[in-house]
């Protein structure tokens, strides 16, 4: 019991240390550059306590649940030796974590409104709803495909740059041809898909898989899933905008 408490307190100080820079920056700019008082001191103090506690709990939970779950699943799949089910799992994980992502739902409905105002789609509720729906499924599918390709890469041992560099070349080329209104949404969607809960899980999956398979190095082969998952949504969303 003492040990757990001790670890918690150590993590608590770690969190304070991690969050210190952000408060220093805000404080210095507010007081010395903008020369304004700090508003709502009460909210600020309560909020800061929440942030510090929250980060501490999150890190503790990470090492207790998300990391072990991702790694155990990876080991079990490698032992079972079924490539088919592993790939189904990879797609399901990418698709499932993204489709319900609150940030994505917000971005998609915002994008639909912009598209309706810009005359890309009809200004009816039905058309807006269809667009939101289509965008959400496009992004979720793209992340599913990303984890699928990423897992296949780990198993086959393909070098990561061979996938990423052509991918970004594709993004650059598509940017030149895609309608202006979709480009911002496309770039943003690459960022919203990698949520704080998905990242540790997917990282643990990649690292676990590459240490379970003979001939793979967790350092060279284990990372890269996040990179692919932030790339494919950009491509898919721009394609979505070009096809509409």
């Amino acid at each position, binding site marked *: 019991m003492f040990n757990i408490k001790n670890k918690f307190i150590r993590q608590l100080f770690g969190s304070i240390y*991690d969050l210190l*820079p*952000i408060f*220093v920056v805000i404080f210095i*700019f507010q007081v010395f*550059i*903008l020369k304004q008082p700090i*508003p709502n001191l009460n909210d600020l103090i*309560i*909020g*800061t306590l*929440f*942030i510090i*506690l*929250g*980060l501490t*709990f*999150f*890190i*503790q*939970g*990470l090492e*207790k*649940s*998300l990391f*072990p779950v991702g790694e155990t*699943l990876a080991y079990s*799949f490698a032992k079972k030796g*079924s490539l088919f*089910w592993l790939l189904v799992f990879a797609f*399901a*994980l990418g698709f*499932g974590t993204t489709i319900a*992502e*609150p940030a994505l739902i917000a971005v998609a409905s915002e994008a639909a409104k912009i598209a309706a105002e810009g005359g890309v789609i009809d200004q009816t509720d039905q058309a807006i709803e269809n667009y939101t729906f289509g965008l959400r499924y496009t992004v979720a599918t793209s992340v599913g495909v990303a984890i699928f390709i990423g897992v296949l890469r780990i198993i086959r041992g393909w070098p990561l*740059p061979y996938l990423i560099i052509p991918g970004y070349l594709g993004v*650059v080329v598509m*940017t030149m041809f895609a309608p*202006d209104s979709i480009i*911002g949404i496309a*770039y943003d969607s*690459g*960022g*919203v898909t*990698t*949520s*704080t*809960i998905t*990242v*540790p899980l997917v*990282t643990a999956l990649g*690292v676990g898989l590459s240490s379970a398979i003979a001939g793979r190095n*967790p*350092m*060279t082969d284990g*990372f*890269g899933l*996040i*990179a692919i998952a*932030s790339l494919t949504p950009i491509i898919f969303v721009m394609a979505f905008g070009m096809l509409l």
Partner: protein
Amino acid sequence: MIALITEFLSVLLSTMLDVVPILGIIIFFQLAIIRRPFSQTRNLIIGMFYVILGMTLFLVGLDKALFPLGTAMAEQLTHPSFIQPTDSGTNTVNWKDYYWVYIFGACLGFATTLAEPSLLAVAIKAEQISGGSIKAWYLRLAVSIGVSFGIALGTFRIVSGAELYLFIIVGYVIVMVQTMFAPKLIIGLAYDSGGVTSSTVTVPLVTALGLGLSSTIPGRDPLLDGFGLIAFACLFPIISVLAYSQISNFISNRAQSNNSSEGE
């Protein structure tokens, strides 16, 4: 107090909505495909509870303390009454007038990235599997420096009105060249660190900065110019992490060759 509790509950609900599909998929595959019960179930449940509670507290806290202040500051710093642009009579902006914006962007990018929980997760994992040869703290520092530079350059781009894709293309050319020369071990991690930065803390504040800037400068469209900052924040950490490994590799190589020449 009641407002705080309702906010807490609504954030708790949306965090749980975020977690439920993930849990569903994991439980389904564990029980139906792998057909083995979870080991250490108790730990997993406690851990999941911690993750959900932690995320909720973190998000509510950000909403209470950081976001209102941060976004207000971004608006004030980009406001013409603070900038006091030198009026040259024409409609062009002088990019030098906005120096506080670049400095603020750099500081903000640096500090928010250090506080980013998903970067922390990746850094912890990287330190574990590299056997400590990659230090979590240095990795996070390298990523933060990259984001910091990226945001500063991104705000400069909005002010100057240069084309986004020119910067992005040059950036990726640098990444390609570095990829050829960087130690193979770091490449996957470096590419990943581009994606993890655009997360809970950084995106809302940086977006506010971009929107504030592009809506106050004449001739900028918030829709087209505001978003580019995120693209910058994703690109430059890749460069800085690759550079970090190249530099540390160079130093350890030199130390090694020094040692061996002394030994002879």
